[in-house]
């Protein structure tokens, strides 16, 4: 089973990397970008076919390691 965990910075947390990317896009002439916030994507393969169990394992993974919930939110998706 394939899954994806997306980790993003919480609202209100300053994101200097996102700001730098935003600035770089502007200087490259990519128009229409209002703002950029960067984050992380984890593509994970799971053993077994139980989607509910998979989601539980992924939430545990995100809470214990993948995200620091002081500053980050995460989203778990079981893809197939």
């Amino acid at each position: 089973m394939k899954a994806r965990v997306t980790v993003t910075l919480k609202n209100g947390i300053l994101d200097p990397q996102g700001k730098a990317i935003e600035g770089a896009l502007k200087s490259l002439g990519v128009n229409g970008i209002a703002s950029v916030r960067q984050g992380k994507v984890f593509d994970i393969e799971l053993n077994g076919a139980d989607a509910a169990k998979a989601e539980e394992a992924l939430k545990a993974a995100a809470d214990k390691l993948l995200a620091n919930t002081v500053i980050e939110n995460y989203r778990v998706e079981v893809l197939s």
Partner: protein
Amino acid sequence: MKSAVLVFPGINRERDMARALKLASGQESTMVWHAETSLPKGTDLVVVPGGFSYGDYLRCGAIAARSPVMDAVRKFAADGGLVMGVCNGFQILCESGLLPGILMRNAKLKFLCHDVHLRVERSDTAFTRGYNAGQVIRVPIAHGEGNYTADVETLKRLEGDGRVLYRYCSPTGEVGDMHNINGAAASIAGIVSEKGNVLGMMPHPENHVEDIMGCTDGRGLFAGLVEHLERAA
């Protein structure tokens, strides 16, 4: 003072730390590998040194914070043992839940490697006993992620409980945006835990302890720890 210095893959300041500890206490520290599940018997102080544990993968200190030895450190700290984390060690202590908040990328995205001035906020703690309150010391920094952040409630509590021990400042002790080298909340360079027995700080006091280093302002921290333990004994 019987000290244990933790060693993780990618850590590189453990020898500097051991040298400073020996200079202050006259005793060799024990190097403790991350896979250990216990600390040496009779340990007075656990030090988490600086470096780049696990190549800073995922988040600085995130993987080291979840290694077996950290369970022993959590227990040691819960029993009131003294723990000190410097630079990557501070990041590891935050990630392990021993200290609140997190160290984010420096506000201007640059790796900073130079001397800074710190104002010692109080002198009545195990980690500042060797200084006077308000004293300014000069110590080096070397970090890319030293921008301390926590939620508003935590910051209020840190300030209210006097848990900010070191702040970035000017050579004469003024605190402000101009001297806040990495953008840290309230110019925070070092904090202690609620019980006052766990310190985390970004600057490296261990690198200013001998005349050959050009400055000995870091000595006070180590001398203060030795004195604290002697008084407690």
